[in-house]
């Protein structure tokens, strides 16, 4: 029996399938393996990953790699994806005009208006004026409470702003209950003797008066013009549990639009269309569709987007050692997102969800140096290696091993870097397309929107459902259900939001609510996969009409996702299409389609390589 290996090098994983061909020509699949791709797809760096994958596959058969008679590598689609993010707005607080953060434990719900006064100057206060007292960290909560209690006997104190996290401690020692805000980091920047309004929301609620322009006007006695001016302040306080607005002549909250740069889209017909990134994702994508087939895309020089696009190109030119100018960006996917950014001029370290655009770009080169990879691989393991077959065709061949499929058949390959689609009809004609943006863009969006430190956490959030450990013996699941543990779990997980891996729980270190994680994760997948699937299918469908595709098989790493296939099925059900996760060779699930296709095509093809 001859052993044939199919090797598929993807953006994120390298897949291997080993098949045995008997002397009568019948084929039997023996083993398959999936490994991380080493280096950028299509470069000689991949060889290391291919070797380990082959060794692992052969180990399952207890045979050395040298027993293989042929290795078939796919002619990888010369597309490589990259992602980047661009913040397009910036919020600035001028003249320390507001404080709006979410201290975990403010005290004394209510609103009040008064003149700002430092606790060190309590003696200077008049009897007739209401005051909001500001105390820094060096005064202990006991001293603050004592000083205030004494001062309250002769003057009116209506609110307190503390630097330390001691609001409840002070409140518990005050004779009269007033709103107290704590954890204001830069308390020294608060201007004294200015009028201010303070509000602490009821538990579980957010501020009502100060998040409303007319509320601020009521409290601080503003005229129509001033009221119009404080609208940005009110807007930025929406959803906060406590707030202070200080009346200063030039104080305000400004939202600046950052110069993000322009993209020029060059169509095949020579037309050039230009759009600014700060317009947001929808106009960019509309323009892209208008442009038809794309020749190249260029970013404005010396801007962030320009640097990003030329960076991707340079990278590719170096990898493929092609001449400058031969690498083109043929597709991008722009997605609107929000990124938490520290507000400049903030007193309490407030962050604001700034608008941002996430971009996945795809580079097309003339051809990837697959022959070089084949050559190096042969030198290292002394087995003949052949570059055979176009990736999309091989994937379709492999997908056909899914039970219940028939021609004409379309596949959607949901990978890490790109979303590819291909369609084969009864005559064997293949149409295919590659779209920028897939799993890696989803990870980036999750990381940005949740403000996570590491991409790895974002990757894990993408892959696994979440739960919240409520005691050492039970956990609340994201669908509201309850899971009980047989034995007490690791106390480090107590009270945490965790990711439910098949055999393990991963703790999320960042302080993000479970509901927020679910919402961000689902939206990111919707924005990338559903949008891209429709874009790709429209392009390969007969007459660009999705309804004319009878059945679609989902393959690729991201098709293994626990919710993406369902999202796509729901969306495609509108077009009356049979769509589902592939099950390659009845055993492999959606993975290994290309590698399987490569082995299969050996049977069908001529063996002049022997």
């Amino acid at each position, binding site marked *: 029996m001859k052993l044939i290996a199919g090797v598929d090098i993807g953006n994120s994983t390298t897949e291997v399938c080993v098949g045995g061909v008997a002397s009568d020509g019948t084929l039997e699949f023996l083993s398959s393996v999936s490994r991380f791709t080493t280096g950028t797809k299509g470069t000689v760096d991949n060889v290391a990953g291919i070797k380990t994958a082959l060794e692992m596959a052969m180990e399952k058969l207890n045979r050395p790699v040298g027993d293989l008679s042929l290795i078939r590598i796919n002619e990888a689609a010369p597309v490589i994806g990259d992602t980047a993010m661009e913040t397009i707005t910036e919020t600035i607080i001028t003249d320390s005009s507001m404080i709006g953060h979410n201290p*975990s*434990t403010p005290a004394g719900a209510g609103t009040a208006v008064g003149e700002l006064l430092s606790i060190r100057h309590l003696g200077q206060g008049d009897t007739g004026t209401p005051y909001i007292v500001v105390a820094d960290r060096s005064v202990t*909560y006991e001293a603050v409470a004592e000083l205030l209690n004494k001062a309250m006997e002769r003057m009116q104190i209506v609110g307190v702003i503390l630097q330390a*996290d*001691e*609001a*409840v*401690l002070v409140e*518990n020692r005050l004779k009269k209950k007033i709103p107290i805000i704590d954890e204001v980091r830069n308390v020294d920047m608060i201007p004294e003797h200015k009028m201010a309004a303070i509000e602490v929301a009821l538990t579980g609620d957010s501020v009502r008066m100060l998040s409303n322009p007319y509320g601020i006007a009521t409290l601080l006695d503003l005229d129509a013009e001033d009221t119009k001016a404080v609208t940005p302040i009110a807007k930025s306080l929406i959803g906060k549990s406590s707030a202070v607005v200080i009346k200063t002549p030039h104080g305000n909250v400004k939202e600046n639009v950052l110069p993000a740069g322009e993209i020029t889209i060059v169509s095949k017909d020579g037309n050039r269309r230009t759009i600014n990134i700060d317009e947001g994702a929808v106009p960019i994508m509309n323009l892209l569709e208008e442009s038809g087939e794309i020749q190249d895309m260029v970013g404005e020089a010396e801007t962030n987007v320009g640097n990003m696009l030329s960076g991707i190109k340079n990278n590719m030119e170096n990898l493929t050692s092609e001449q400058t100018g031969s690498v083109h960006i043929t597709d991008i996917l722009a997605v609107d997102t929000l990124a938490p950014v520290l507000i400049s001029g903030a007193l309490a370290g407030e962050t604001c969800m700034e608008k941002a655009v996430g971009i996945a770009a795809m580079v097309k080169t003339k051809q990837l140096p697959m022959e070089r990879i084949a050559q190096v691989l042969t030198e290292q393991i002394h087995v003949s290696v052949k570059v055979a077959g176009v990736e999309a065709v091989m994937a379709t061949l492999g997908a056909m091993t899914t039970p219940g499929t028939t021609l004409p058949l379309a596949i959607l390959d949901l990978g890490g870097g790109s979303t590819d689609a291909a369609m084969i009809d009864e005559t064997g004609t293949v149409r295919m397309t590659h779209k920028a943006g897939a799993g890696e863009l989803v990870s980036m969006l999750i990381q940005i929107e949740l403000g996570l430190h590491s991409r790895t956490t974002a990757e894990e959030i993408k892959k696994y459902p979440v739960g919240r450990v*409520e*005691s*050492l*013996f039970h956990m609340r699941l994201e669908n509201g259900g309850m899971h009980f543990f047989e034995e*007490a779990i690791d*106390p*480090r997980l*107590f*009270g*945490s*939001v965790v990711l439910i891996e098949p055999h393990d729980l991963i703790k999320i*270190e960042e*302080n993000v609510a479970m509901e927020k994680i679910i919402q961000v994760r689902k939206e990111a997948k919707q924005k990338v996969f559903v949008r891209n699937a429709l874009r790709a299918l429209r392009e390969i469908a007969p007459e660009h009409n999705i309804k004319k595709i009878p059945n679609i098989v989902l393959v690729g790493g991201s098709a293994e996702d626990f919710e993406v296939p369902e999202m796509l099925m729901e969306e495609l059900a509108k077009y009356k299409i049979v769509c589902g996760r592939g099950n390659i060779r009845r055993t492999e699930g959606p993975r290994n389609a290309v590698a399987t296709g490569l082995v299969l095509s050996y049977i069908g093809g001529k063996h002049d390589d022997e």
Partner: protein
Amino acid sequence: MEYNEELVAAITKAVLQQINEQNVSQTDRQHIGSAKTSYANARLAEKSTNPKEVVVGVGPAFQREIKATITGIPLDDVLRNIKAGIEEEGMVPRIVKVLKTSDVDFMGLEAAKISGSGVGIGLQSKGTAVIHQKDLYPLSNLELFPQAPLISLEMYRAIGKNAAKYAKGEKVTPIETQNDPMVRAKYQVKAALMHIRETEQVDPKIPIIVWEEA
């Protein structure tokens, strides 16, 4: 040199004599610290049903035979900060003295077991602290602060806050602790002596008593 039975017998006798002398001197001095305090009249601490409660179980010598931590921080201040941390989170502190044991983990567990929320803090007189939960094994814990010389008053405040957050079932970020490999060598003798003084006050017959009236 010649070995014979007589010589062995002589050496054995000499050694035994010395051991006996040492025994006498040790029985003379049973305590390295002050005499044992009697808590015979103290009220035993009981299990509470208040879910807002976090119990702090202090060591047998706390605030009595030992008045400051290993680095000299007054225990009154330590306790005040832990209580402030619990109070700031909207929970209620209760202070008990554990006489059953001088081991920090067991002290924390004893406190947790009578705590209405099921969360307790164990606090040795030398300053070592642990946050415990009633369902855990004794030597397991929610958070342990093993190097007493590196714990500051701000950290004691944070320990109180975190314990309260565990009791509320909130997401807790573990307190950043320092680690100094030289601490052990530098404080080993003092830590051992303080621990012996604490252990001398252990009285299993009165396992856990009310320490501060609410």
